Structures are given as structure tokens and as C-alpha cells.
């Protein structure tokens, strides 16, 4: 489904990704782990098309289509979804309006009729329950005054509504207590499907207790330096990143 070959990307002239190679097939769940500053978030942003990052080399295809040629919104319409690490607020725009606009953009792209307000309300209420969000949140401004955990659940709700081909989860576990982590994980597991791939970016192993990946990759210094199965994550938890010869700045700071 997703094929990344020798991807190089930089921000403000500084190279962050230095040749990423990754193949993800439909139905698979991949986890990307690595210390802070290794380029994990950059990879998710670049795949989603954040124009703050410049791709200098390499190629990325989604089901054979050159992703790098597409505008951000067109990538989204082709089925790329990014759950943000720090979802931004849009004051005054109701969550409901925002979500309906997004869902209708997707439906229009797929040649389906737009959903009217009443139909959408019904659907959104159901999905909000799935991530344990009070439907009252639908009427509030996008992420406005949401707690960290509410924002993350809101992101997963959007993934459930938009039903993407590839869901990229950027540090979806950060800042969550154990109960919230479980709710979010249930949501992500509900996303798992044969025709969908999931790419999780995380610093910590604990998320992988709840969402069990098929593959784990270690990203360091802008390159994937090791790949393996589920057991690689456990080994990392036990031995830290130092074992792979990488300095974990956060661990060092702690």
C-alpha cells in the first residue's frame, strides 16, 4: 500500500530524514519507535504533506500513486489520515461543522452524496460514543478548551469517521493516563481492517501493549536502523535505546 524509498526531508535547511525506506501492506500495523529528535514526527508530517518540510530526495507512493506530487488535501482525500500529536484549536468553528465538512469533502471525492446535518449528527453521535466522548463535544469549537486526552480521543473519532486507507498516529499515547490510553487504543483497534494500514509513531513501548503491531522499526538520526516484530519493542523497553548505540536525549535528561 505505502512504499517509501530513500526519503530525505529537511526543515529550514536542516536535514532531518536521511534516507527512509519502508514498505507497508494493507492490513498491517507498523510501529515506529525512536528517541526524541530522531525524525519520527517529521516522517508523519512529511507523509501528510506539511509544507513546512521540504522533500529533497526519494519517493513515496500510495497504491502506486506518487504521493509527493499531491497537495495536502488531495493526499487526505486519497486516504491518508494523520492523528496529530498536538491538535490545534479552531475557535468558533464547531467540531460538528468541521467534521461534517471533512466527511462531505471525502464523500464528494468518492462520488457519494453529501450528508445533511441531521444524518451526520446521528453518525457523529454514534462514533463519539465509541471513543467515550460526550456528544456535547460535537457542539464545542474544534479542540477549544479540550483537555489533552479529549483532544486525542477527538482525533481518533475523526479517523473512525473518515475511514482512511492509511492512518498515521503521531504520539497518540503521549499525555494520556491509563484509562484514556485504553479508550484510545480501543478506538485504534476498531480501525484495524484488512484494507487499511496503520502507522504508529511512539516514544514508549506501553502503547504497544494495547495496540499490538505486526512490525516495529527503530528510527534514529533520520534513518531506520533496525526492524523487527513485536519482540523488538519489548527488547527496547528492557534495554533502552543505548543498546543500539543511540543516545536517548530524553532518557539522558531524566
Amino acid at each position, binding site marked *: 500500500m505505502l512504499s517509501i524509498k530513500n526519503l530525505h526531508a529537511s526543515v529550514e535547511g536542516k536535514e532531518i530524514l536521511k534516507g527512509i525506506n519502508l514498505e507497508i501492506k494493507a492490513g498491517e500495523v507498523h510501529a515506529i519507535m525512536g528517541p526524541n529528535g530522531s525524525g519520527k514526527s517529521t516522517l508523519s508530517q512529511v507523509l501528510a504533506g506539511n509544507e*513546512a518540510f521540504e522533500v529533497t530526495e526519494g519517493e513515496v507512493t500510495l497504491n502506486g500513486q506518487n504521493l509527493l506530487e499531491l497537495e495536502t*488535501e488531495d493526499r487526505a482525500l486519497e486516504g491518508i489520515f494523520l492523528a496529530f500529536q498536538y491538535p*490545534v484549536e479552531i475557535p468558533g468553528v464547531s467540531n460538528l461543522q468541521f467534521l461534517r465538512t*471533512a466527511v462531505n469533502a471525502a464523500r464528494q471525492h468518492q462520488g457519494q452524496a453529501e450528508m445533511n446535518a441531521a444524518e451526520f449528527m446521528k453518525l457523529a453521535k454514534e462514533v463519539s460514543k465509541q471513543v467515550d466522548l460526550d456528544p456535547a463535544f460535537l457542539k464545542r469549537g474544534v479542540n477549544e478548551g479540550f483537555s489533552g486526552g479529549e483532544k486525542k480521543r477527538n482525533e481518533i473519532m475523526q479517523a473512525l469517521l473518515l475511514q482512511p486507507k492509511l492512518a498515521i498516529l503521531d504520539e497518540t499515547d503521549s499525555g494520556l493516563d491509563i484509562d484514556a490510553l485504553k479508550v484510545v487504543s480501543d478506538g485504534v483497534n476498531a480501525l484495524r481492517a484488512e484494507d487499511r494500514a496503520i502507522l504508529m509513531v511512539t516514544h514508549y513501548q506501553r502503547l504497544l501493549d494495547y495496540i499490538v503491531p505486526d512490525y516495529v522499526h527503530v528510527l534514529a538520526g533520520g534513518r531506520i536502523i533496525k526492524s523487527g516484530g513485536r519482540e523488538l519493542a519489548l527488547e527496547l523497553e528492557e534495554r533502552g535505546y543505548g543498546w543500539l548505540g543511540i543516545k536517548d536525549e530524553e532518557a539522558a535528561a531524566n
Partner: protein
Amino acid sequence: MATTDKEVKELIKREYEHGFVTEIEADTFEPGLNEDVIRRLSAIKQEPEFMLEWRLKAYRRWLEMEEPDWAHVGYPKIDYNSISYYSAPKRKEDMPQSLDEVDPELLKTYEKLGIPLHEREKLAGVAVDAVFDSVSVATTFKEPLAKAGVIFCSISEAVRDYPELVQKYLGSVVPAGDNFFAGLNAAAFSDGTFVYVPKGVRCPMELSTYFRINAANTGQFERTLIIADEGSYVSYLEGCTAPMRDENQLHAAVVELVAMDDAQIKYSTVQNWYPGDEEGKGGIFNFVTKRGTCLGRNSKISWTQVETGSAVTWKYPSCILRGDNSVGEFYSVALTNNYQQADTGTKMIHLGKNTSSTIISKGISAGRSSNAYRGLVKFQPGAEGARNFTQCDSLLIGDQCGAHTFPYIESRNKSAIVEHEATTSKVSDEQMFLCRQRGIDPEQAVSMIVNGFCKEVFKELPMEFAVEAGKLLEVSLEGSVG
């Protein structure tokens, strides 16, 4: 980041929708203003003597007045003698008695502007007094209004038919010597609207006027006077558009509102005069004096404005809160793009006891535009227990525009309470990225974000205008995203 800038540039490229010129033979005065011109104007309008005297007095005073230069705007000096002060569409008959008698070219113009009179009559129940250049061409719904006792006519008719009311109230809120542009208007006002709502009457429909500047090199100086007698209620809407021209055109209107005991006036404006092209060439100079006086106890005046047009805007719809317990409100959305400049806000003058005022101002700047809020809240010694709440929010799109806030607060009464909140924010790259990542195209995203920003003001607009205002913002912002 690149996104927003590119987006801004594209939005900026939009074309002005209402930029067409109607080919109609017109009676137009030679450019220039002098006593003779005023006499001719007054004669054409068959005005009573008092009106001519009032105009002449205003003119003599205006000659000695200075054009104000304190606003945060810049524009080339206006030659007031290069402007023609009267232009009226030529007609075979004196005045059309019904729409059938109106020049079909004019009606087509209204169609293009999206004001199908017939449709409005039937669907919305809105009475439209349509002002085309200087003369009121078609007034609909006069009969049901007359049944309720409401007078809704052009100011020219009012001068002839209701001289006592006009003489009593014209200039009572905005005197002829109030300021330079009000003085010019008093001397040369061409037409406008007059509304009188009698005691205890709730006006049975929304009243609406569309103004339109058509002939080249004509200034438009409308004069509007609305009087709400004791316990009455009226909601008045005005919408404005003007054709695309390379030269600047002057629009210096005066609006006066008078609310008696327990009366309420709600005045809504959607202003979309031609803003000039993307290089800042052409466009309307919109120098307007709007003021209402809450003369009676428990009276209320509410101004709501959505300002997206004009090259330069100088406008401060204000309330004089004279009656005890009277209420003044100002809700404003001002959007500037390209090289547009706006200096707009309000004055709330508290004179009576327990008077209260609310100011909600939303300024949106894009392109290389400049957008200033200027507001005065004043409590006079008698304003015991008065209070004001002010909220001024600015939203920036791109990094070449400017937003300024000039709030003035003067309190001469210790019991007065004033609250002021101000924020400045940007349509951030992160917000744009979030929307686009969800498959929403950039223009729709900007429009959604801006509409969200303006929500508190839009909810004050009558329903059909709220929809129009939302669309107008969308059009005005076209190309500001890429």
C-alpha cells in the same frame, strides 16, 4: 509557512462580483459644488424653503471646515469640485408607480446584484427601497406598512410630505457642523431613506435598502433618518455594492436614528462597495457618519455591520445613551484585503443613569491591508451605574497586513464600570494544515476559520443576512489561500 501566504495571494486574486456598469442615460450635473448647484439640486427635488436654507447654511459652514486626518488611513487628496453632485436615471414618466414602470435596465441591475425585487416581496416579506444613484426608484410594500402607520419612503419624499418630522429631527443627532463629511452631506445629500414608526407599533417586516453607485464620477451622499416613537420596534437592513472603476468614488453618507421611550432600533449593514483592484487602484472612499440617540428611557439602539468593501473606510456607528436605562450595542465585522484600509469602530456616550453598552468588534486583515478599530466609551457625570463591555478581536491572514486597536475610555462618573478585552490572532499554518489534512480545500478552510471568528457578530444579523454575510466573506477572501 508557505501555505498561508500562497493562499492569501490566491484569495486576493478574486474578481469583484458586482463590477458591471449599467448603460442608462442619466441627468448628471457638471462637476463642482457651489450655492448655485445646491439651489438647482433643491429645486429638482421640489424641496420646501427650510430645506434649501438648511443646505446652504451647512454648505457655508462646510467651506470653513477641515478634512479630518487623524484616522489610520492614507489616500490622495480629494478634489471636491471634480465630483458631480447629482445624477438621476432619466425616465419618460415622472415617477414609476409600480415595478412595471421601472426601466428594465435598472431591474436587470438589481437582478445582477442579487436583489430580485419580486422575489423579495413574495418570499422574505422584505420591503425594499432601492436607491440607484441619487433617486429612489422603486419602493415596495408601502401599503401594508401604511396600514400599520409606518412611514417608509425616500428622504426626498419625506421632505415634501412630512416636513414637520424632517425639520424636527434632521440634524438632531448628527448636526450639519458635526464633521467635514457630515457637513458635505448636509449641503449636498442626494437621497436616502426615511422611516417613522409610530407609538407602540412593531414594524410588521424588516425594512431594507440597497444603495448602488452607478454613474462615473458621482459622489453618493445618502441621508437616512429613522425615528422610532415610544414603545415601537424596527429592524432596518442596508446592503451596498458599487461597480468596478479605476477612479476612486466618494461615498459620504449620514445616518441618524432616534429612539424614544421603550423603543428599539436594530440597524444592520452589509457593506460591499468596490474595494479597488489587487494593486489598490480604484475603489470607494466610504466616509460615513452614523449615530443614534437613545432619547427615551429603556430605549435601545443596536448597530450590526459587516464591512468587506471600499478602498478606504472611515466609519463609527455610535450611540448617545441619553435616556435612563437605555442600551447601545455595536457588533462589527470588518474585513480588509489587498490594499484596503479601514478605520472603524464606535462611540458609546453614556449620559443617563444605568445605561449600558456592548461593543464586539472583529477585524480581519489579509493581503497588504490595514484594519484599525477605534472606539470611545465615555461616561458623563450623570451616568450613574452605567457600564460598558468591549471586546476587540483581530485576525491576521498572511504576514503583510496590519491590525491596530485604538480604544479610548473617558469616565467622569466613579460608579461606571468598564470592561475591555482585546486579542490578536492569526489564521495559523497549523490550523490550515489541520483542515487540509482532513481533506478540506484551503479556501473553504480559511472561510470556515474566519466565519468561526465572526460567529458572535453574525448571530446578531437577521437570518437571511447572516447567510449572505458568510458568503460575502468567502468571496472577499477568495485567493487568500493556496
